[in-house]
């Protein structure tokens, strides 16, 4: 049978596993977070941190100028080579 609550050291160890995930927290963790301010603050720090990390997906680093052109030229060369190969059979 599951324990009603966890100890602080156990919570600190498992927060990186559960914080920010969609799945509900285990009962013991949930109970502890409701009664321990310090661990609850720690859990909030994880959730906020991961929320910001997820928001960083949009590019902070723009693609270098001319990338589209360089890719298109390489693709065109590839296409020409393939068409030539196909014609030769």
């Amino acid at each position: 049978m599951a324990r009603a609550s966890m100890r602080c050291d156990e919570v600190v160890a498992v927060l990186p596993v559960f914080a920010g995930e969609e799945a509900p927290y285990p009962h013991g963790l949930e109970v502890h977070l409701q009664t321990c301010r310090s661990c609850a603050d720690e859990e909030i720090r994880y959730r906020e941190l991961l929320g910001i990390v997820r928001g960083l997906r949009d590019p902070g680093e723009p693609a270098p100028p001319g990338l589209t052109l360089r890719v298109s030229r390489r693709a065109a060369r590839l296409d020409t080579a393939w068409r030539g190969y196909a014609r030769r059979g």
Partner: protein
Amino acid sequence: MEGSKTLVDGELLGACRRGDPAAFEELVARTQHRVYALAYRLVGDRGEAEDVAQEAYLRVFRSLGGFREESRFETWLHRIVVNAAMTHLRRRGRFGDLLRDPATDPVPPPAPPAQDRAADRDVIRRALEGLPQGMRTTLVLYEMYGLSCREIGREMGLSEGAVKVRLHRARKRLKEAIHGASEHAV
């Protein structure tokens, strides 16, 4: 600027599949920032990120004819970029950095507290870049690009369990880099 909306629709993909060069160029133009940003986060060098992005697009060009799941295009594109980045790191002899388990490496001191949300993002971005490569890659792919632990494991040649352990360590390391270690019960 690219937002979170769908960047490539079925019509554009159809034109690319029919071999329309202008359509392919448009596809690259629409997705280049996102592709380059992912490549840069994985290889950590601007020049190498461009090589990876170009290689990924050539793979897209070769494979697009057989791709039918329009709604999943961006996920598919991200996987190709990840795969191209892993190939690149292997060729450069840097793949070992991804597999190395740096759990016992010393954690750098926490960053000074940020004053606002934009500064928060900047501090976190820098802390993320300071993570060991294997941890950074796992965290980026899982948290930002939505790959599952199984998918990440497939790309990195690790078991799903090993990826989960790495992900949890990366979260902990990042949190410690920002806020320091937990002040109680450690």
